């Protein structure tokens, strides 16, 4: 099964509300990253949190990481229509000095104006 699984698979909220997405993973990691993908496009990096960090902020984004539960959450505050996209978590693990990312299944977020 997937290293990263996201919950919920899809989420629809009213503009202005907060959106929370969760990611669970199975193995030890060096870092966890969140990416956004607009329909039919490539991914855009949002935020990276290291395994020794518990919380990180970037603008309207807040990411938490609980390595004991092997889970992370992404909170988008005061959502906007432009936040409509799919959001993926990706876990990073170094092997032989190099790092690969394993992507989760994604959460499809729809912001209703």
């Amino acid at each position: 099964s997937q290293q990263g699984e996201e919950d919920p698979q899809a989420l629809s909220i009213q503009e202005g509300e907060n959106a929370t997405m969760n990611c669970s993973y199975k193995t030890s990691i060096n870092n966890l990253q969140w990416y956004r993908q607009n329909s039919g496009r490539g991914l855009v990096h949002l935020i990276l949190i290291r395994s020794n960090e518990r919380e990180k902020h970037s603008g309207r984004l807040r990411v938490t990481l609980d390595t004991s539960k092997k889970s992370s959450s992404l909170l988008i505050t005061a959502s906007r229509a432009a936040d409509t996209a799919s959001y993926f978590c990706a876990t990073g693990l170094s092997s032989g000095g190099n790092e690969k990312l394993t992507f989760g299944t994604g959460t499809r977020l729809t912001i209703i104006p």
Partner: protein
Amino acid sequence: EADIYQTPRYLVIGTGKKITLECSQTMGHDKMYWYQQDPGMELHLIHYSYGVNSTEKGDLSSESTVSRIRTEHFPLTLESARPSHTSQYLCASSTLGGRTYNEQFFGPGTRLTVL
């Protein structure tokens, strides 16, 4: 905006044709990746490269091949396209990090349809 380019953006081709998907980046990144993504699904790593003349297979088995003759260029080739190859192909790059954790920069993707 990340300077990583993919061409073509869309390709519709018949079964049995040979195709090459182009990926170029102007950021001087050593690491480059190819992912395959079906609509609404997760990304699967199919190839990666840590530098010139370095190529490795990813987690998902793929009939495609790649080459890395120049740092900035990482083309993907399918010798004989089949309908099962229909998917979106995403190219990405990142800097060599070792113990430094780096984000990946993605191209816009190539949506391939094999009839």
